[in-house]
């Protein structure tokens, strides 16, 4: 019975969302514009056979994960797979018309003709192929990308390059990452394979939180802060535009305060905190020279948005007093606009204002609670968490065009879904979800597809995605 009521609420909310907006904002990713990519498995020679599976798996995952392509299913691939451009054969010229009553001769090279890939059923625009071998103690993948719209193998070649690594799984994976990066970059995308995600890790429920870091695919998880303080610990990190600094909030000195650390080496740069019960939620301006944050100064009434120099000095308030104003994020494109969350009209909603505090506008429509705004690199689109259409506390990830206020919903009531942040490529989002029980960090494409779970140990939340 309870479940039925829930369904009714969810369905009703969903209908309401659909009915309340024009269907002309389709989000960042237009899958209809994606071109089809075929990647038949590479074969390995000699010792490379042991690691070529890891190579194939990584290459496919990275290229598919880029969101730039529709991947042609392997089950449609022809029986013979070219391993190098020389394997292609030109189809024989048509000699004579088939005799009446007999079927036409098969127009196929079983995989060695360009048309075997560009025609049905594969219908690939691009073909990625090659092979792997061990040469002089190094894993070498010889990789090619053809644009199959161009008629001949000589014209079609976009990439022909060797990718090397150590002779093990990691080396094969590295070679695949680099090949995928070249493919993504060649197609006008941004490669995120070398980017980092900072996040908040809590080993046990109720324990002190610390800031951790990992690679964009969830590998190489490592502890960043080591306050070892009493709970709640540290949380809410942000990365500087150049990736060299992290700002976050910590209870290490009893009341919540802002810290700015350099990344390499990991060092406290000693941000000056105003004397206040709350200093929190720092983020960087696009030039990397200032910090915007929330503070309860001067009368311990949380919070106004402040701006200060990187070391905390030269601070001044931006937003008016008397409201709970949190999570300021400066528009990365213009640098003159701030998105933030305020309770000034009731429950939390997402607002924008000029960097001088003027022209405050609410961008969420007042329904539910809207929190955790994150600017797309284009400076026009915001991702945020919203309970609109759901019960209080049931957040989902939404993406909104700030000018038209049109939005799409990316997650659909699988647990709580919060803390969306954009990857540097503007195509991926990292976020926190409780869909599997505990809070964990996930990534997905900006259309809500290709969800990947990056963390699984303890509790993990509040990702910040930097270079």
């Amino acid at each position, binding site marked *: 019975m309870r479940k039925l009521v829930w369904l009714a609420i969810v369905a009703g909310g969903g209908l309401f969302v659909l009915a309340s907006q024009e269907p002309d904002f389709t989000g960042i990713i237009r899958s209809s514009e994606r071109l089809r990519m075929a990647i038949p498995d590479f074969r390995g020679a000699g010792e490379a056979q042991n690691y070529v599976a890891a190579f194939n798996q990584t290459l496919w995952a990275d290229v598919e994960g880029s969101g730039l392509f529709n991947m042609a299913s392997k089950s449609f691939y022809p029986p013979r797979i070219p391993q190098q451009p020389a394997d292609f054969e030109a189809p024989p010229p048509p000699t004579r018309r088939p005799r009446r009553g007999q079927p036409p001769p098969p127009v196929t090279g079983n995989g060695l003709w360009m048309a075997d890939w560009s025609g049905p059923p594969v219908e690939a625009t691009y073909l990625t192929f090659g092979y792997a071998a061990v040469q002089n103690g190094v894993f070498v993948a010889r990789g090619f990308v053809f644009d199959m719209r161009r008629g001949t193998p000589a014209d079609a070649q976009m990439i022909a390059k060797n990718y090397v690594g150590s002779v093990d799984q990691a080396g094969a994976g590295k070679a695949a990452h680099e090949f995928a990066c070249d493919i993504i970059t060649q197609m006008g995308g941004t490669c995120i394979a070398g980017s980092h995600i900072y996040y908040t890790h809590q080993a046990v*429920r*109720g324990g002190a939180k610390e800031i951790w870091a990992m690679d964009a695919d969830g590998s190489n998880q490592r502890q960043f802060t080591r306050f070892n303080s009493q*709970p*709640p610990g540290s*949380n*809410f990190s942000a990365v500087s535009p150049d990736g060299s600094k992290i700002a976050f909030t910590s209870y290490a000195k*009893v*009341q*919540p305060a802002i810290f700015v650390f350099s990344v390499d080496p990991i060092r406290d740069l000693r941000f000056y905190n105003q004397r206040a*019960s*709350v200093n*929190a*939620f720092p983020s960087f301006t696009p030039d990397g020279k200032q910090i915007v944050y*929330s503070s*309860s100064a001067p009368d*311990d*009434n*949380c*919070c106004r948005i402040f701006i200060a120099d990187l070391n905390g000095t030269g601070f001044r308030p931006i937003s008016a007093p008397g409201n*709970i*104003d*949190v*999570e300021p994020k400066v528009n990365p494109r213009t640098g003159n606009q701030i998105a933030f*969350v305020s*309770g000034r009209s*009731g*429950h*939390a909603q997402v607002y924008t204002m000029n960097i001088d505090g003027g022209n405050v506008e609410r961008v969420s429509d007042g329904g539910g*609670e809207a*929190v*955790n705004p994150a600017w797309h690199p284009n400076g026009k689109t915001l991702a945020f*968490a919203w309970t609109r259409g759901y019960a*209080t*506390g049931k*957040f989902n990830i939404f993406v909104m065009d700030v000018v038209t206020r049109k939005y799409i919903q990316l997650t659909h009531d699988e647990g709580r879904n*919060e803390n969306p942040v954009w990857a540097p490529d503007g195509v991926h989002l990292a976020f926190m979800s409780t869909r599997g029980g505990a809070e964990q960090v996930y990534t997905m494409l900006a259309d809500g597809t290709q969800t990947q779970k990056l963390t699984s140990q303890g509790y993990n939340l*509040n990702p910040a995605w930097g270079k």
Partner: protein
Amino acid sequence: MFERRSISAISLAVLLAVLAAGCGHHNPPPPPPPSPAVRPVEPAPAPVKPPAPVIAQFTAEPTSILIGQSSTLRWQVTGDVIGASIDQTIGTVQNTGNRRVFPSRSTTYTLTATGPGGSVTATATVRVAEAPPPPPPPPAPVAGAVTFEQSVANNVKDVFFDYDQSEIRADGQSVLTQDAAALKALLADFPNAVIMVEGHCDERGSAEYNLGLGDRRAGAARDFLVQLGVPAGRIRTISYGKERPQCTESDEECWQKNRRVHFSPGQ
């Protein structure tokens, strides 16, 4: 101890008296020594040694005092006396006399009597008790007396709030009024203590917004207490947002328990 010294002083006096008697003029001279084999140079006749003086009495009364109290030395020297003196800066004294002394630590006085027959000494010791020990600490708290922490826990009650609200409800006002009275008494009893006003929220809002909301709740409770006369300088506020729930179920009963202001000893 003193008793034994007293006895030994008396026996010494008696012994001296016997010796002195043995050297008296009235005894017959001893027989001459036997002649040497080779007659030596005739030695000068040995002078007749006069008797040394006799210390008939040298006592301290009392022998044990506290700092600042006095003891009286009494002495009597008889016999052939040229002079008598006592050390410890007392100096020359009459043959018979007494003197109050105020030693600050245990002291042994030595009386020296000198006569033609030699010198004799006697001692008397005054013991000075150690400085009295410092007063003991106040007695351990008996049942009923408690620490500041316990007092806060026992007497200062939590205040509860509506969802996404920091206004003090009517029930909260009556609780805070009692809290104010308890806090004024407590802060007077513990003059160095500071009270921490903690703002908490339920799990539903965002962690960020709840950090702000918790601060508002703590601030509202603080302002209410200050209006009722709790000294503002003894209050600090802190927001834990939803980071320290006291209840982890996802239902309204539990959420209400977590939407609260809680009081703890300050740091």
